[in-house]
């Protein structure tokens, strides 16, 4: 009875604690300067309103990496947007998936960040590739907590 459409097989969940307030984490994931520091130096453009675009480019702006739509925006708690990996031709041809960022305040001056990447049913190449969220998110944690980015992936 194992099929590709079982919800569990097409959802990825990443969670970590960051020594920062909920607002600081929200700012870090939406502020273009901070986003560039933890997310492969991307150029980000977004107005963070439901229905509007959230776009990203390579650092030199020569290649579009993402052209997605904001589905939900509830600062400083929740940001949901579509996902299509435009930086790779095979992945770009796969159907759109969805990324949700959830930020919860925790005792002791911590925030809990949960990233859910789902609706990956028909996008196996994208699903394999976005396992890299672990690197992005631990980089985000390092940038917020120490102000320094990790060395680039080889």
């Amino acid at each position: 009875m194992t099929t590709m459409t079982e919800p569990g097989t097409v959802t990825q969940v990443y969670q970590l604690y960051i020594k920062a307030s909920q607002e600081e984490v929200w700012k870090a994931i939406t502020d273009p300067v901070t986003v560039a520091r933890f997310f492969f130096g991307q150029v980000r453009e977004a107005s963070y309103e439901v229905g509007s675009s959230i776009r990203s480019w390579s650092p030199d702006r020569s290649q579009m990496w993402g052209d997605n739509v904001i589905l939900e925006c509830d600062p400083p708690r929740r940001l949901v947007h579509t996902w299509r990996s435009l930086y790779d031709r095979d992945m770009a041809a796969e159907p759109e998936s969805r990324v949700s960022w959830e930020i919860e305040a925790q005792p002791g001056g911590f925030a809990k960040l949960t990233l859910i990447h789902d609706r990956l049913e028909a996008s196996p190449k994208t699903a394999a590739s976005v396992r890299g969220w672990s690197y992005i998110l631990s980089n985000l944690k390092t940038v917020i907590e120490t102000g320094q980015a990790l060395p680039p992936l080889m």
Partner: protein
Amino acid sequence: MTRDYSITYAPLVEDEDLVFKALADPTRRLLLDRLFERDGMTLGELEAEVPQLTRFGVMRHLGVLEQAGLVVTRKQGRHKHHYLNPVPIRLIYERWIDKYRARQAAALLDLKGQLEGRQ
């Protein structure tokens, strides 16, 4: 056991002891292997994957994995799904491996500087 109670309201943030303790058990590593193969299984589905364990045993091991942050649960309708969370392992990797990689990169840059005559 008092340690376990404190976790429920104040997670032991960045407690690597919990991660290593969780990974030190072969059954828990097996559960993680099964989730790696098929993420998001319910308790019932996980039970079927490790028939040698009782339901209570599976629950207990999942509890340890969850406290260490290696498993995250999400409710979906009537079912609770278990997901493998790779971030704590990534953080451990970076603590040692990436540090050396950064040092190596710096050393190479020094060498480059020297070779290019900027001693």
